């Protein structure tokens, strides 16, 4: 069993959803990004997504886009991402979330080998679809990494089934049609999307895009196997806040979200 499969077996036994937290490596700087990830684990995050900052994050809203830009301007490199993974993976299952071009440029197999070497459990690929992922399917198999693809409310039934089959660990369901970013209300499309996945697969389903509070987390936890939170955590560190205050805010939010998924 992989680390992620273990996690979902445990949360299912505890009769709760898992809490997945996203933060980009190197934002606002490398040391603070590590401290913030430690803080969100302390606060109750079960699975960490480490973002690999990219110059053209077309699926991300302004909060994550600005964070990625700042991390790159600070000189964040792929090796820094693996350094951050190493710290997080020592405590909880940890995956990298990355757009595809940096992986391809690094070398798909080399990326998979180095991610596995850092203790990483898998990769979330927001702009790579299984139909075009032959090289990653092979590399993830060779290095025993989970591959987390995305489905969306616009996905056809055929594509849902195909994507669920190609995925392992869990499937990332985007709750709304839109980019990342905290939203005031949770999506009405998400429960239907999760139900459509359940009709064709028994893979664990994580729901992301828009969750920012404990109450929203509880709502999503009622129908999903994992609640994924990104922008709301990144926002704690945005806008030039003092690193210590930002890290404390990350921890406080993680605690609130964790209480939400256990309601």
């Amino acid at each position, binding site marked *: 069993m992989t680390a992620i499969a273990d996690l979902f077996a445990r949360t299912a036994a505890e009769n709760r959803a898992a809490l997945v937290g996203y933060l980009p490596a190197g934002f606002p700087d490398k040391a603070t990004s590590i401290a913030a990830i430690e803080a969100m684990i302390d606060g109750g995050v079960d699975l960490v997504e480490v973002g690999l900052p990219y110059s053209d994050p077309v*699926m991300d809203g302004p909060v994550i886009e600005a964070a990625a830009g700042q991390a790159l301007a600070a000189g964040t490199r792929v090796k820094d991402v693996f350094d951050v993974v190493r710290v997080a993976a020592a405590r909880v299952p940890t995956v990298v979330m990355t757009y595809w071009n940096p992986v391809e440029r690094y070398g798909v197999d080399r990326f998979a080998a180095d991610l596995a070497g850092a203790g990483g459990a898998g990769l979330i690929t927001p702009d790579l679809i299984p139909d075009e992922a032959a090289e990653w399917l092979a590399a993830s198999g060779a290095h025993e990494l989970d591959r987390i693809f995305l489905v969306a409310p616009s996905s056809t039934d055929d*594509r849902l089934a195909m994507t669920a089959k190609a995925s392992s660990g869990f499937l990332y369901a985007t709750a709304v049609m839109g980019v990342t970013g905290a939203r005031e209300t949770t999506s009405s499309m998400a429960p239907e999307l999760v139900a459509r996945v359940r009709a064709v697969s028994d893979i664990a389903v994580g729901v992301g895009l828009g969750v920012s509070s404990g109450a929203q987390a509880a709502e999503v936890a009622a129908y999903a196997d994992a609640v994924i939170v990104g922008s709301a955590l990144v926002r704690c560190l945005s806008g030039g806040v003092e690193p210590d205050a930002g890290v404390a805010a990350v921890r406080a939010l993680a605690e609130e979200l964790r209480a939400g998924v256990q309601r």
Partner: protein
Amino acid sequence: MPEALIAPLDELATAWDDAKADPTFMAELQRMFREYAIVPSPLYEATRFSAAVGARILLKREDLNHTGAHKIRNVLGQALLAKRIGKPRAIAETGAGQHGVATATACAYLDLACVVYMGEVDTERQALNVARMRMLGAEVISVTSGSRTLKDAINEALRDWVASVDHTSYIFGTAAGPHPFPSMVRDLTRGIGDEARAQCLELTGALPDAAVACVGGGSNAIGLFTAFIGDSDVRLVGIEAGGDGIDTGRHAATISAGSVGVLHGARSYLLQDDEGQTLESHSISAGLDYPGVGPEHSYLSSIGRASYRPATDAEAMAAFDLLCKTEGIIPAIESAHALAGAVVLAKELGPDATILVNLSGRGDKDVHTAAHYFGLLKDGE
């Protein structure tokens, strides 16, 4: 490409295939071309320019189309398709503003709501076109992220589209991006080359020795080249933006100096660093200032059917000046890159050569940039 856009893109591809096969749709598009866009454009023998550069130069006058560039062909087709599939809102990205103006025009003509994304750097250097789009009823959104140029305008348009795709068409401006855009844009612009080929045969009794076009994303170039791909004696030459020179790193010569990667849903040549981060491109021409290029150009380059070479800002502006002074035609700075390519090719091919150049746009929008470049206005003027 993100999964969220896969089904919409598949639907668009099917809709375009259906429309292409529908004689009523195509007849309406041809009527709009003829009556509204003033297409076909003429082929013009530039006699004094020819004498100055030492070869016979024929200009395909896309600058005379309604809105002043080849872009109107592509936009009328995509906007008419938007009407056909019942999407009341259109979005577009624009660099120089020519595609944005053409989209705003088509949306006014066909009664579609229109939003155009444009990088902040470009809204400043192409302010005239910003005003034109607003006059035509479009909302222009200045994009302040990243390099604040065309690539970032595309990012922002994609972000809009993923949230609005149920009621919005993305009218893509160049022969790049995800399928079906590269082939749809080629289908809609290939009239440039089809017409020019026939016009050249009629005028000279033969095909040209070379066909030359500027390449940013590559829509006017693929429009010119497609008709000649089977004519192996016709050299196809794409001119990329050399900026300050390839060796300075400040350029937009994607095929000449880039490497293979994935950007905006297409695998093609790309200006990127050693870790796959997109590099900022540089060019005096906003329309060529894009770090990617259409995949069909990458293919034509890889099989050797077309060649791609850079022209620097200085070479393009010298050709711009020469066309103004010898022909009384002010070209777009984008098109001036093709003219600069023709100047070099004339020396290589000699005085008996016929060189077909796509004059893809007119230079009204560039008057401010050119006046500044040549120092034509005194302080306070």
